[in-house]
């Protein structure tokens, strides 16, 4: 991030926020309005009541940034945790960019990683200002002042104060450009299980999400989308829809036909009453089996080499060659709050309220649709009822649809766009369906001489605002995790065949690793079995000496499980690990037969994410990632019938994991002084392969097709 030493402009209409500045600042002085809170930088506000509110630049969708980023600020501010509050920062590229993206957005499990220094500097700067303010008003040297748990004190004079009483004086102090921050040994909050700041509102119904926004005169809007991907509206008849009491308008927009009503039920009935003819001339009409067949044919024809090491001709001397093919279905993210957005048009300006995950893409997209300057679009980023990647849209399709809805109304007003569960499951933006092919050769001693892995799937980034990041090269998110493996194979070749379809695809919690970790870690298990090696020991032997963090998590998970091999007391045990988004996670899964059917009973999980900012949140993300991955492995697939219509529609045929299926989970966090990395996604990749390996250990067949319950093709 390019730090600026110049003063930034006033933050537009931030509630109570008087002045926003990018950190660190040179000679700027913070200002405090007569009645407003102390707002020394874009991230921190301190009220006269001592409450410290941190504006969180990352969307809170359950993964914990409200708590995590506030912890970083509180640590350097030496605040008491009980005085900390968090609220979502609005869309503003200049102030709230993800320092790893250079744009405002949440993804890739980067929230803590990119904020670790920035938020601490923000806190440290304000602490220094409060200390200087106290020193001036008490007439004592700043060096003699201490700050602890929200209290500024001077031992010599016996004076002390909370933060609030010092804000007026602190506002006159120059903002330090580069304040010193603590060494890890000095941390008092980082590394502790602090209560999450968003928990209370999520246990009493007061937490406000997009669907909870109601504004005067607001119309609720449902859109009839095509039944096939790539189809368009040919014609429609709105007579019956407009006859539904409460329905006010029907309009064609680029993505379908929008029904505007005075309440949600009327919008639903109105949409049901709509008659739409679709133009399917550019639509996907293949069914899932035909698509898999074309993916296979593509791999028959060859694939672009994306990684190559060593000489694959070594395979010719192999004592045994093992081959396998894996099929992965499309997956819907199915966040429990379906997609929704509120947009208000007034006098040529737009204000939005929604779970906006990529403000830097959504905001200009909306401005483009409405034909107004970006500065005339403001976005309030709200809590999101889950995302798992679904709200992180390189196409900004939801924000764009909301803007089209508002524009098509042809007048000022407030519009709440709501997707139903059926819209969500049938609406695309799926985890790409994927075919993996493997070939490995081992010698008589079981050493892996060569390893070949070919992947066929659609690109996630192509055709979106993020395509320029590919610089014309292959889309790494399609095969990440197949590439970059630390295992010491004699030779390797990884290839990718890019598939095309009008079916839209998107990152799904852990992206490429959702399928690569499964394919790699189950195929490796099969190879180790053929080589007569133990799954844990065999993996450790393949790691190079410098792979300490990989070894650390595998050994820890094995130790927690009391690993003695793939079977023990009639139960099956499987291991898998993956490095994703900089974080190392290994899991051992126990599968037992209960009432004649296999059941995942326990999971031991070891995670190395560098410095553990909030262990409670890390454990929660591992538990949740395990459940999310298990649900997909057991149940989930989106399939297209011949003709191209999605066969699933709601949770009766796209089942969610339920509490009775949730295993006991034990999480160990590896102690580390490395810079922190993310935890939102990395709990997901190892689970399904570890389950598959445990099922095999229990005497079952290996699973080459997901989900386990029912084949995908």
């Amino acid at each position, binding site marked *: 991030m390019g730090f600026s030493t110049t003063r930034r402009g006033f933050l537009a209409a931030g509630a109570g926020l008087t002045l926003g500045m990018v950190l660190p600042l040179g000679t700027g002085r913070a200002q405090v309005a007569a009645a407003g809170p102390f707002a020394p930088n874009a991230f921190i506000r301190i009220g006269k009541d001592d409450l410290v509110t941190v504006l969180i630049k990352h969307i809170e*969708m*359950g*993964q*914990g940034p409200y708590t995590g980023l506030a912890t970083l600020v509180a640590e350097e501010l030496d605040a008491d945790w009980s005085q900390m509050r968090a609220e979502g920062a609005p869309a503003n590229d200049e102030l709230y960019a993800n320092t790893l993206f250079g744009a405002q957005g949440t993804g890739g499990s980067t929230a803590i990683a990119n904020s670790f220094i920035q938020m601490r500097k923000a806190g440290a700067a304000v602490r220094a200002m409060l200390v200087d303010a106290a020193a001036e008003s008490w007439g004592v040297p700043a060096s003699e002042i201490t700050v602890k748990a929200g209290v500024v004190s001077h031992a010599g004079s016996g004076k002390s104060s909370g933060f609030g009483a010092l804000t007026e004086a602190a506002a006159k102090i120059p903002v330090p450009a580069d304040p010193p921050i603590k060494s890890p040994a000095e941390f008092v909050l980082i590394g502790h299980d602090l*209560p*999450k700041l*968003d*928990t209370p*509102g*999520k*246990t*009493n*119904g*007061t*937490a*406000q*999400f997009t*669907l*909870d926004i*109601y504004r005067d005169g607001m119309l*609720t809007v449902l859109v009839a989308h095509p039944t096939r991907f790539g189809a368009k509206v040919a014609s429609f008849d709105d007579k019956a829809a407009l006859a539904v*009491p409460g329905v006010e308008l029907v309009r064609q927009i680029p993505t379908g036909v929008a029904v505007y009503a005075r*309440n*949600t*039920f*009327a919008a639903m009935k109105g949409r049901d009453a709509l008659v739409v003819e679709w133009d399917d001339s550019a639509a996907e009409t293949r069914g899932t089996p035909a698509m898999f067949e074309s993916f296979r044919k593509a791999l028959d024809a060859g694939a672009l080499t994306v990684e190559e090491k060593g000489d694959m001709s070594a395979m010719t001397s192999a004592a045994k060659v093992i081959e396998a093919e894996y099929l992965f279905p499309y997956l819907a993210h*199915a*966040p*429990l*709050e*379906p997609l929704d957005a509120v947009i208000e048009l007034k006098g040529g300006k737009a204000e939005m309220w929604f779970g906006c995950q990529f403000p830097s893409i959504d905001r200009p997209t909306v401005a483009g649709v409405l034909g107004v300057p970006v500065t005339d679009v403001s976005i309030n980023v709200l*809590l*999101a*009822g*889950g*995302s*798992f990647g679904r709200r992180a849209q390189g196409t900004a399709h939801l924000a764009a649809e909301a803007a089209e809805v508002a524009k098509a109304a042809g007048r000022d007003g407030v519009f709440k766009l709501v997707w*139903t*569960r059926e819209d969500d499951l049938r609406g695309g933006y799926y985890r790409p369906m994927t075919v993996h092919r493997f070939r490995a050769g081992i010698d008589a001693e079981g050493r892996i001489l060569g390893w070949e892995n070919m992947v066929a799937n659609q690109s996630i980034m192509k055709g979106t605002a993020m395509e320029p990041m590919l610089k014309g090269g292959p889309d790494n998110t399609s095969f990440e995790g197949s590439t970059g493996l630390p295992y010491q194979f004699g030779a390797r070749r990884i290839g990718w065949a890019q598939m095309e379809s009008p079916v839209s695809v998107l990152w799904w919690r852990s992206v490429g690793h959702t399928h690569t970790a499964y394919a790699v870690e189950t195929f490796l298990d099969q190879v180790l079995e053929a080589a007569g090696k133990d799954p844990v020991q065999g993996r450790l032997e393949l790691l190079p000496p410098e792979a300490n963090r990989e070894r650390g998590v595998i050994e820890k998970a094995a130790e927690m499980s009391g690993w003695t091999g793939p079977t023990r007391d009639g139960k099956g045990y499987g291991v898998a690990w993956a490095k994703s988004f900089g974080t190392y996670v290994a899991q051992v899964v126990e599968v037992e037969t209960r009432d004649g059917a296999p059941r995942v009973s326990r999971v031991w999980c070891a995670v190395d994410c560098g410095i553990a900012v909030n262990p*409670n949140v890390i454990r*929660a993300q591992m*538990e*949740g*990632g*395990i*459940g*999310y991955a*298990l*649900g997909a492995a057991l149940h989930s697939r989106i399939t297209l019938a011949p003709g191209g219509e999605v066969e699933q529609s*709601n*949770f*009766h045929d796209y089942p*969610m*994991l*339920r*509490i*009775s299926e*949730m295993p*006991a*989970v034990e999480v160990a966090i590896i102690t580390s002084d490395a810079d922190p990395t993310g935890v939102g996604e990395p709990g997901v990749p190892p689970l399904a392969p570890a389950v598959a390996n445990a099922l095999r250990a229990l005497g079952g067949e290996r699973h080459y097709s997901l989900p386990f319950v029912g084949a995908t093709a």
Partner: protein
Amino acid sequence: MVTLRVNGRDHDLDIDPETPLLWVLRDELRLTGTKFGCGIAQCGACTVMLDGMPRRSCVTPVGMVDGSEITTIEGIEGVEAEAVRSAWTAIDVPQCGWCQSGQIMSATALLQMVPAPTDEDIDNAMAGNVCRCATYVRIRQAIHDAAKTLEG
């Protein structure tokens, strides 16, 4: 005209009696703690108490509950509800939070009927409440914790 008694207050509403209770609570009464997740009674995010029993409000036509006592997350009280909420907060059960009102309603109803539930009781009583973040480990723990506080 439909008369609803919600959280101890009466409301006379001129509304299509087919309207699901969920949308009446949200769109008309602005009690937004009750959530929409599926619309077909498959996820439990819309769970409310109807005459003391958990009910999926998304498939309950408002005309059918004329005169019933309805309690939402905003109005639920009593020792079981308090124990559940405290246990939920103590171990930070929620992640995204969308399903949690429904989870708390179902957990409270369970403890009202079975003060010391087994894991199997919990599996049965909570089977209709999906948590997409899979906070199930903590939901189970919090219900056991709440049961313990009720014992003492």
